[in-house]
C-alpha cells in the first residue's frame, strides 16, 4: 500500500472522532487519578490507544495536538510536543509489529516508550528549561548534580525513572481496554489487525487481579 493511501485509510472518520477524545483523555486522566496519589500521570494513554487502533501517524497527531491544546492550561506544555509525537510513533510501530499481543510484550513496549520519551525529553529539559521543571524531581536532580554528575546525565536519569513506570502502566491499561472492546467494534478502526489477530485473550482473572 502506498504511504498516501495508508494515511487516507488511517485517518478515517472514526479516527477523526477518536483523536479528540484521546486528546481529552491525555489531558484529563492525570487529574482524575490524582486523588489516588500514585507516582504515575497517564498523560499518553489516549495516544497509545490511537496508536493501537489507528496507527502511528494518527497517534503522532494526537500527541502533537495534546501538547498544543494543553498549552492553554500550562504554556510550557507545547515545548514537550516532540516527546508526545515520538511516544505516539513508537507505540504505533510497536503495535504494528505485534507488541500489543501478550502482557510481557506490552510491558516491553512500555519500557521502550519510557526510554524513548526520556531520550527526547532530556534535551528539551536541559536546553529550554535549564534542567528544571519544578516539582519533586528537581530536588533529585539537584542531589545528583551535588554528587558530581553532569547536568545531562542527571536529567536523563530522573526522566527515565519517572517515565518508565508510567509508560509501562499506560501501555498495560491501554491494552486491557482494547481487549474489552467487542471484535465487531474494533473492526471499525483502521488498524484493527493490530489486535484482532490476538486469539488467546487473557481471561479476566489474569487481568483484574
Amino acid at each position: 500500500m502506498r504511504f498516501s493511501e495508508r494515511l487516507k485509510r488511517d485517518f478515517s472518520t472514526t479516527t477523526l472522532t477518536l483523536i479528540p477524545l484521546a486528546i481529552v483523555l491525555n489531558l484529563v486522566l492525570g487529574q482524575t487519578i490524582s486523588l489516588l496519589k500514585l507516582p504515575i500521570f497517564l498523560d499518553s494513554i489516549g495516544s497509545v490507544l490511537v496508536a493501537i487502533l489507528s496507527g502511528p501517524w494518527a497517534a503522532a497527531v494526537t500527541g502533537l495536538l495534546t501538547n498544543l491544546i494543553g498549552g492553554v492550561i500550562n504554556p510550557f506544555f507545547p515545548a514537550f510536543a516532540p516527546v508526545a509525537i515520538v511516544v505516539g510513533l513508537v507505540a504505533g510501530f510497536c503495535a504494528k509489529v505485534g507488541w500489543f499481543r501478550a502482557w510481557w510484550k506490552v510491558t516491553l513496549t512500555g519500557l521502550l516508550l519510557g526510554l524513548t520519551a526520556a531520550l527526547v525529553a532530556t534535551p528539551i529539559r536541559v536546553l529550554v528549561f535549564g534542567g528544571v521543571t519544578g516539582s519533586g524531581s528537581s530536588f533529585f536532580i539537584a542531589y545528583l548534580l551535588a554528587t558530581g554528575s553532569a547536568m545531562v546525565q542527571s536529567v536523563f536519569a530522573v526522566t527515565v525513572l519517572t517515565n518508565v513506570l508510567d509508560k509501562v502502566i499506560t501501555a498495560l491499561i491501554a491494552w486491557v481496554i482494547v481487549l474489552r472492546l467487542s471484535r465487531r467494534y474494533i473492526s471499525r478502526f483502521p488498524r484493527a489487525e493490530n489486535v484482532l489477530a490476538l486469539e488467546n485473550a487473557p481471561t479476566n482473572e489474569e487481568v483484574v487481579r
Partner: protein
Amino acid sequence: MVDYGWATGIFLGVLLPWSAWLGVLRPVLQRVVWVIAPLALFLIPIHSFFHPGTTVLLTIGHFTLTQEGLAYAYLILSRLAVLASALLAFSLSTTPAELATTLTQQGVSPAFTYLLISPFQLIPEVRTKAATILAAQQARGMETAGNLWQRSRALVPLVVPLVLGALVDVEERAMALEARAFRAQGYKTSLVQIPDSVAQRWFRWGLFGFTVAFVGWSQWQFFTSRI
C-alpha cells in the same frame, strides 16, 4: 555568546505592550508569574552553584556561587517568560471558535480544525463523567485512600470505564459527523466571516519574515562565534 538582553527586550518591549493592547495584561502577568516562580525557585540555586564559571560571588561549604551561573539562570528564565507570555497572550485573547473560523477561512481542512477545536468542548464533558465514575465505584465499596496497594487497586476501576465509555461513543459520534456531510468532497463555506484586511496580511508575512531572519541571524552568530 548570545546576547542576554534579547529575551528581556522582547518580553518587556513587545509582548507586554501587545498583551496590554489585547486587554489581557493582568491575567498574562499573573499566569507568567504563576508558572515561572516555581521554576525560578529551583533554577537559580541549581545553576548559581553548579554552572561552570570563574567569577565567584559567594562560597558556602564546598559550593561556590558564580556570576556566570546566575546569568545563565536569568537567561533561561527570561526566555521562558517570552515563551509563556506569547502563548498566554494568544490563548487568553482568542476563543477556540474564532480560531476555528479563521483556520477554515485560511483554507485549513475542516478535519484538522475539528481535531484542534472539539477537545476544548469535550473536556468539561469528560470531567463530569470522571466524577460520576468515581461516585459509582465508591458506591460499590471501592476505597480511594489507604496504603499504596489499596490505592493502586482503585486505578483500573477508575480509568477503564472512563476510557471505554469514550471509545464506545466514538462510533456514534463518527456517524453523526457523516450524517452532517462532514466528509463531503468539494467546496466548503463558512457562516461567520472574520474580517481580514490587506494590512493584516502584510503584517503576518512581515512577522514570518522577521522570525526566519532572526533565527538565521542568531544561528549564524552562534556558529561564527565557535570558529
